[in-house]
């Protein structure tokens, strides 16, 4: 199975609006470049879209990013959703962190993954038991 770079909401926003978020976008660009070198897939878990889509005018930049054939959207399915619930329970976090848990559960669908995130504390806590997930704080 493949390796993947998983983008959370902050990473998607940084890549979609690089001039508004220059520092974050530069870091996201670096990890994207390294992902290409490693032949890793680039994926956005579908629940992240609920955090970044805010109306037609704002969405055009996000849609431009997601229409790139290199950026795939990972659908949510029963396995990932149930795994996300287990991850939340293990980390003793409430469902207020459900999207973060979906991000971690999506990363677990790959042999190895890095999550590029603007919220490293919560993602680290959720991903702590899983050695095959790395975290890149943007």
């Amino acid at each position: 199975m493949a390796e993947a770079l998983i983008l959370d909401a902050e990473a998607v926003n940084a890549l979609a609006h690089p001039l508004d978020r220059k520092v974050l976008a530069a870091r996201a660009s670096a990890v994207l470049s390294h992902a290409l070198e490693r032949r890793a897939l680039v994926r956005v878990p579908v629940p992240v879209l609920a955090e970044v889509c805010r109306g037609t005018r704002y969405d055009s930049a996000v849609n431009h990013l997601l229409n790139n054939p290199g950026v795939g959207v990972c659908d949510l399915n029963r396995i990932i959703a149930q795994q996300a619930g287990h991850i939340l329970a293990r980390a003793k976090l409430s469902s207020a962190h459900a999207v973060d848990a979906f991000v971690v559960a999506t990363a677990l669908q790959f042999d190895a993954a890095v999550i590029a995130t603007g919220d490293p504390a919560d993602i680290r806590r959720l991903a702590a038991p899983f050695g095959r997930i790395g975290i890149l704080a943007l």
Partner: protein
Amino acid sequence: MSQPAAKLSVSVPGELASAVRKRVGSRGLSGFVARAMAHELEREGIRVLLGELEQKLGAPSKADLARARKAWPKR
């Protein structure tokens, strides 16, 4: 529902064709080629995205690239 298949006729180096046939057999050839094409299309997309970002931000710094490299789990 799967999409209708398109037939393609392509030319590849003979040694490469033999190596792939040996690996996947003649029945697995279409699936292998489709996966390879999809993967290359994705990589090309990332190259385009990186080009757009570089135009706006410049090339990634060595420090950011080093951080990115270190973030990957050891295997």
